[in-house]
């Protein structure tokens, strides 16, 4: 039996089409994926992301531990509570075990959000690595998480959740704040997301989630399913774990070099030796954006033919904002410009572009 989030009844009430996603019964859409996509780009929408895994880490050597565990450097967060960082967690070969967001908390601990699909292996890996440190790991499955995204997301959330949101209204992007709701329950609000739009990710006790959802609905924030979540993140050029990178892909080949902190040189994070070696010879492949020139739809795992050799799409879809098919693709490092994509044994002209494709509602590429 798949698990249900604290918002399950709300999805049924909103007539969601439910699907099994990583062992969770989740809404894929509430009628029209396209309309939901546009709703987030143009106004405000909310996602139930309670299936994601929230871990609170604490202990005297937690910073040392995380500087060893993660490819990005949590020392960059310290000493500013609430600051967030995107990072990969690598294996010794430099392959990506998972990608995650980590927040520095008021109590000098950290809060980490990892993918639902990788929960078991992440927990096993983190626990194993933590054995050498004085660290406690607490899974916060008592919390629900709602992401509210879109140009009007912040204003509508403030309207819906009232005074509890006041501390969050002055947050800079990629910062979070811990506060309390009227009832005294904990509330954690981060100005982060997975859509390329402004907005919040809100964590709150599971028992409060239904009321928050209803208040957001009343403020005209529309529920958005996993389908639109995928096209939104793809337009925003954000990787999806398991599709755009995995344990056999290094962040250098997944467009994530920016998230690896090679400085200070003395920081010995897991996977560092493998990445250093790759940097010396420069990686053979890179992740690029693709736009299909004509009609058609790009999908994951289509063959890409470039002047520098063959590659493969890792994520692909029709871009509702651009009205054209887009993809992320792993191609030879020297590839650029025009290419072809094989779709059902036909070769269709496409081109390699810099992504993101869309940010804050606006196209970032010339069509």
């Amino acid at each position, binding site marked *: 039996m798949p698990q249900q989030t604290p918002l399950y009844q709300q999805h049924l009430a909103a007539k969601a089409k439910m699907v099994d996603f990583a062992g969770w019964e989740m809404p*894929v859409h509430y009628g029209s994926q396209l309309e939901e996509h546009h709703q987030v780009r143009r106004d405000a929408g909310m996602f139930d992301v309670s299936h994601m895994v929230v871990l609170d880490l604490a202990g005297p050597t937690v910073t040392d531990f995380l500087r060893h565990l993660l490819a990005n450097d949590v020392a960059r967060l310290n000493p500013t509570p609430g600051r967030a960082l995107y990072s990969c967690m690598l294996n010794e070969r430099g392959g990506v075990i998972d990608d995650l967001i980590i927040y520095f908390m008021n109590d000098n601990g950290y809060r980490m959000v990892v993918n639902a699909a990788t929960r078991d292996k992440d927990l096993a890996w983190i626990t194993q690595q933590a054995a050498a440190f004085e660290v406690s790991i607490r899974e916060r499955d008592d919390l629900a998480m709602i992401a509210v995204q879109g140009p009007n997301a912040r204003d509508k959330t403030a309207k819906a959740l009232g005074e509890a949101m006041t501390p969050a209204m002055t947050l800079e992007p990629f910062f979070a704040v811990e506060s309390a709701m009227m009832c005294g329950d904990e509330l954690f609000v981060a100005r982060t997301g997975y859509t390329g739009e402004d907005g919040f990710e809100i964590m709150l006790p599971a028992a409060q989630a239904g009321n928050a959802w209803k208040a957001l609905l009343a403020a005209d924030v529309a529920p958005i399913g996993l389908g639109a979540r995928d096209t939104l993140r793809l337009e925003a050029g954000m990787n999806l774990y398991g599709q755009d990178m995995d344990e056999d892909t290094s962040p250098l080949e997944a467009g994530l070099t920016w998230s690896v902190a090679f400085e200070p040189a003395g920081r010995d994070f897991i996977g560092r030796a493998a990445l250093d070696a790759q940097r010396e010879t420069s990686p053979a492949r890179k992740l690029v954006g693709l736009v299909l020139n004509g009609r058609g739809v790009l999908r994951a795992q289509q063959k890409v033919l470039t002047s520098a050799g063959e590659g493969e799409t890792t994520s692909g879809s*029709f871009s509702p904002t651009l009205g054209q098919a887009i993809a992320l693709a792993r191609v030879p490092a020297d590839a650029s410009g025009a290419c072809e994509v094989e779709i059902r044994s036909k070769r269709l002209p496409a081109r390699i572009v810099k992504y993101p494709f869309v940010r804050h509602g606006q196209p970032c590429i010339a069509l």
Partner: protein
Amino acid sequence: MSNTPSELKYTKSHEWVRIEGDGTATVGISDHAQALLGDMVFVELPELGSALEAGEECAVVESVKAASDVYAPLTGEVVAANELLEDAPETVNTDAYNDGWLFRIKLEDETELKELLDAEAYAELVAEEDH
């Protein structure tokens, strides 16, 4: 609940067929199929004049979610394709049985018609799948 007009014939792979009086048949995908696929963004139609065999993959409908093959319900030559869908693939969602038609076949063997499902049998099939 999905809509299955009684004057049409259907296939197990969710195409509908309208027998025209002139030896041709018009083909589309059922309301149930369009609802499952969701927002249509691209339709690839068979070429005019191409010869199709019953059961052959001959068109593709793609929604934001997925690509799905369309199978020729009957053997024959493609005599028309719905060009409207090039610019307005969403017509398959909004009007699956009329303006959302895909292509028309000139029938080669009318005895194949008895292989098709009537509306009642198709509605039963859909009901079973929903379980």
